[in-house]
């Protein structure tokens, strides 16, 4: 066992040969955070007393859901054979929507620990990230975690991992983040196998931003990996994508609390603060250089985050609209990929059209809005960006079905993703059926070990955002995992289906769907709304239409009875209060033309319920 390093190396004067930069690739719940905690403890940078579970995951939601949204980098001293090293552990987000952020984190490393639960085996997202790491030529160290669990099957999963990365099962390390078993051997292995960073100390400075975090007190904290040259405090730096200059107010390393240093040299990883207040001014993937002596070429790999999933967010209580606006403004400071603009809906009132990286991103933002800002929200069905070309050759990007051009349409293009689904082999048939029903094209199928299969499909993203994951989970008893990455776009036979109440379009229910599915969508929505909308004084037709063509119709017949037969024994108070309550209810009704619809009916219809939930 290696001792804790008695004399840690000083940042800004550490030789690249003594640096190891690595990340951990793992699925949610496979114990990445627990393992990271144990490393912090074993290397001595967090004392046992102040150790709090999952130290690195700062946000409550992350801790509760066991996922890491924001990565950070921690510098840990470690001694092997009397020689001291600085280990930089770069914490990567482990989820499907954050592929770009993962790729930037990987680009900051030379090695990756592939961490897999010894009782569960590898999952689709981990596999996707592993491929990403292999494409980046990272050295992979396969590790099975949770070997203390009774259900652990290290023999089986060692083989699985070895076959995936092309090593020997004996080389797969076995650790327990919980008990600490094997963690020091793992750190030794990192020093042994991960190559030291390489860079030109004399070239103009180039540092890659792999994370950018908003802090209420300090403004934006930017995490960088220095590739060439060095950065020093008080110098002026330049963001190469925008050309913007900032003064470097503070530069340092996390261990894991921020510690200012005299700078960062080649191969080093740390944070910097410039006083900017919005993460959009310090973008992940961008290259930082010295403003006085700038580099000519930016580092490769930078792209603007592009929203792929759109949804309208509306406060259930309309008077919360200003709070929602403020909340989004605040979240935007720490989330460069969140964008939104005001939107109004007949059914839902005032809200915002928001763009997200993916479904999980949408879910996280909605949850943060509700939890951190006390908002009650309703989200419209997620939509993807469609490129719609009209007959007069004008192309518009439609992120909200209600903005679909009304005239003749020449063509519609939709985003496509490459989807990987990992599941026990017994479910292959049902998964293939599901994917085919969602217009998937099979790309391939591969066995991982004996009983697990990876299925690859090209699929329209629009099909995935529409409850695909729920169906996948329920059809596989929760065993399937899913990953997808953008794979361009395709022209498809898509139409917009409108839902009309007494001839008035209810914007929140318009959807862009494949022609073959328009009828079933129309049928489903008209039936659902018929069950949810209370009867009116007059007959209300509910129609589904493509343009002017009606494809489905239901009728809500006129109400005939709305009267209480009796006032019991002179209890007028009760009757009056009942009416007052009904009148209150009426005030909360939304009007679609002449039709009164309780907001709960819209909410239930959007969440796929057939019944209005009783409060």
């Amino acid at each position, binding site marked *: 066992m290696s001792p804790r390093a008695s004399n840690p190396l000083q940042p800004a004067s550490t030789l690249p040969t003594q640096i190891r930069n690595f990340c951990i690739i793992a699925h949610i719940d496979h114990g990445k955070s627990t393992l990271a905690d144990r490393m912090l403890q074993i290397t001595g940078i967090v004392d046992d007393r102040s150790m709090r579970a999952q130290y690195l995951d700062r946000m409550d939601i992350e801790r509760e859901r066991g996922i890491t949204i924001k990565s950070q980098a921690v510098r840990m001293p470690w001694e092997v054979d009397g020689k001291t090293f600085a280990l930089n552990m770069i914490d990567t987000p482990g989820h499907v929507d954050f592929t770009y952020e993962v790729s930037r984190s990987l680009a900051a490393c030379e090695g990756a620990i592939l961490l897999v639960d010894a009782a569960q085996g590898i999952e689709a997202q981990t596999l996707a990230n592993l491929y990403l790491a292999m494409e980046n030529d990272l050295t992979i160290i396969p590790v099975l975690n949770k070997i203390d669990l009774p259900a652990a099957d290290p023999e089986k999963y060692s083989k699985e991992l070895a076959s995936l990365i092309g090593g020997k099962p004996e080389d797969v390390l076995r650790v327990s983040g919980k008990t600490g078993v094997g963690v020091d051997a793992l750190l030794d292995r990192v020093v042994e196998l991960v190559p030291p960073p390489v860079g030109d100390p004399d070239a103009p400075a180039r540092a890659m931003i792999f994370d950018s975090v908003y802090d209420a007190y300090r403004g934006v904290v930017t995490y960088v990996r220095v590739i060439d040259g060095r950065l020093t405090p008080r110098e002026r730096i330049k963001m190469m994508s925008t050309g913007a200059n900032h003064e470097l107010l503070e530069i340092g390393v996390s261990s894991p609390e921020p510690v200012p240093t005299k700078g960062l040299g080649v191969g080093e990883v740390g944070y910097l603060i410039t006083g900017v207040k919005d993460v959009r001014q310090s973008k992940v993937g961008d290259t930082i250089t010295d403003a006085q002596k700038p580099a000519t070429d930016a580092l490769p790999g930078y792209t603007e985050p592009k929203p792929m999933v759109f949804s309208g967010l509306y406060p259930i209580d309309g008077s919360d609209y200003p709070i929602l606006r403020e909340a989004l403004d605040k979240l935007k400071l720490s989330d460069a990929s969140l964008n939104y603009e005001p939107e109004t809906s007949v059914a839902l009132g005032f809200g915002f059209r928001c763009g997200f990286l993916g479904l999980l991103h949408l879910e996280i933002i909605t949850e943060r809005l509700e939890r951190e800002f006390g908002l009650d929200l309703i989200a419209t069905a997620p939509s993807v960006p469609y490129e719609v070309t009209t007959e007069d050759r004008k192309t518009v990007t439609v992120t909200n079905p209600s903005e679909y051009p009304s005239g003749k349409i020449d063509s519609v293009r939709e985003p496509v993703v490459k989807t990987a689904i990992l599941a026990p082999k017994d479910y292959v048939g049902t998964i293939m059926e599901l994917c085919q029903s969602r217009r998937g094209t099979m790309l391939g199928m591969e066995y991982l070990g004996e009983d697990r299969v990876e299925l690859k499909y090209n699929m329209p993203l629009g099909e995935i955002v529409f409850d695909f994951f729920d169906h996948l989970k329920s059809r596989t008893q929760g065993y399937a995992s899913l990953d997808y990455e953008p794979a361009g776009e395709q022209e498809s036979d898509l139409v917009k289906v409108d839902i009309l109440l007494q001839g008035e379009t209810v914007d929140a229910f318009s959807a862009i769907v494949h022609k073959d599915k328009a009828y079933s969508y129309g049928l489903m929505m008209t039936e659902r709304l018929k069950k949810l909308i209370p009867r009116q004084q007059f007959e209300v037709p509910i129609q589904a239409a493509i343009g002017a063509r009606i494809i489905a119709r239901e009728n809500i017949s006129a109400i005939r009875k709305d009267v209480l037969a009796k*006032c019991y*024994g*002179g209890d*007028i108070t009760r009757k009056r209060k009942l009416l007052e309550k009904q009148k209150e209810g*009426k005030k909360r009704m939304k009007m679609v033309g002449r039709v009164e619809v309780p907001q709960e009916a819209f909410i239930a219809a959007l969440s796929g319920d057939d019944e209005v939930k009783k409060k």
Partner: protein
Amino acid sequence: MGALPEGDIAPTDGALTDAARASRAPLSAYVHIPFCRVRCGYCDFNTYTNDELHGARRDDYAEHVLREIELATSVLDCGRERPLRTVFFGGGTPTLLPARDLLRVLSRLRDELGMVDGAEVTVEANPDSVDARYLGDLAHGGVTRVSFGVQSAVPHVLATLDRTHSPERVPDVVSWAKDAGLDVSVDLIYGTPGESLDDWRASLESTLALDIGHVSAYALIVEEGTALARRIRRGEIAAPDDDLVADMYELADEAFAEAGYHWYELSNWARGAREQSRHNTAYWLNHDWWGFGPGAHSHVGGVRWWNVKHPSAYGQRVLAGESPAAARETPDVEARRLETILLQLRLATGVALQDVSEFAAERARGLAVEGLLDVDALSHGSLVLTLRGRLLADRVVRDLTD
């Protein structure tokens, strides 16, 4: 009646404000008899079977009511300047008490508060809880009218309602009542789970064959907390279907009209003005009444109050010389305006246009166009529901009072 409303604290001595006491609106009395032999599955009235009385005794009950009459006399403090126009013994099952108990209460009311000549005095009865002698005793003691809880003439409907009488007995009790010189009314319930339109027609026909002056027909309301509500929730029986219930109402209205009965209130039909229930009309016109007995509601001079629900709590209060009121309220102008509309609109005489707001008058025109208010009546200055409007009365009230 479910739970009592929430309200303001009622004073222990039951005292009213001078303003309320100064009311000279016609005065009625309601006497609640909170006892039943069995509890019917649909019923949420304030009534108790022997098992549920917890120490309260039927034998003591008349005595307790007499104590509340003493209280009323002193609170109203008007001597006999406001003689009672109507008295109504309701329940529960009033006829579970011996006739002499009801008559003791009636005569004390007459002695203490006074009673107009020709006052209407009604007793509710189950067909199986009275005989000719009992009815004769009531008539002799000053009761003028009996209202039988017939509900249905169809055995399976009666069974679903947990009613114990046999339909064959109804013509007998009705003729005994008539022989005793009593006016007769019959209560019917429609919309019982499992009741068909034909079942309802049969009940209507056998009721009309009784040749009586007054009929009440109430749509079954499934009240929360009743055995019926639980059976429906468990899926054992189907909830009443509103469309069928509407058909049943229309059928009843048509059958009654053909037989010479006119609707004078949403759920009440009478052969002539004399046969109309003056007691119930007092409620709709928002007159004053004192409700005696546990859970009874009162309205005097703009103050509403309601008594504690359990007979034993009621007994303790009145025996201690305290008001049995649980709480009271004094509805404000807006609430009273709503009450006026919701109560009077139920009547065939309707609401006078001059009594409603500008806004309601404007709405009324729209409702007349929609066919819910009678166009002719509106042109003569009153808001009167059409047949369709009667079935949507609560909606009309909401529209008029937005």
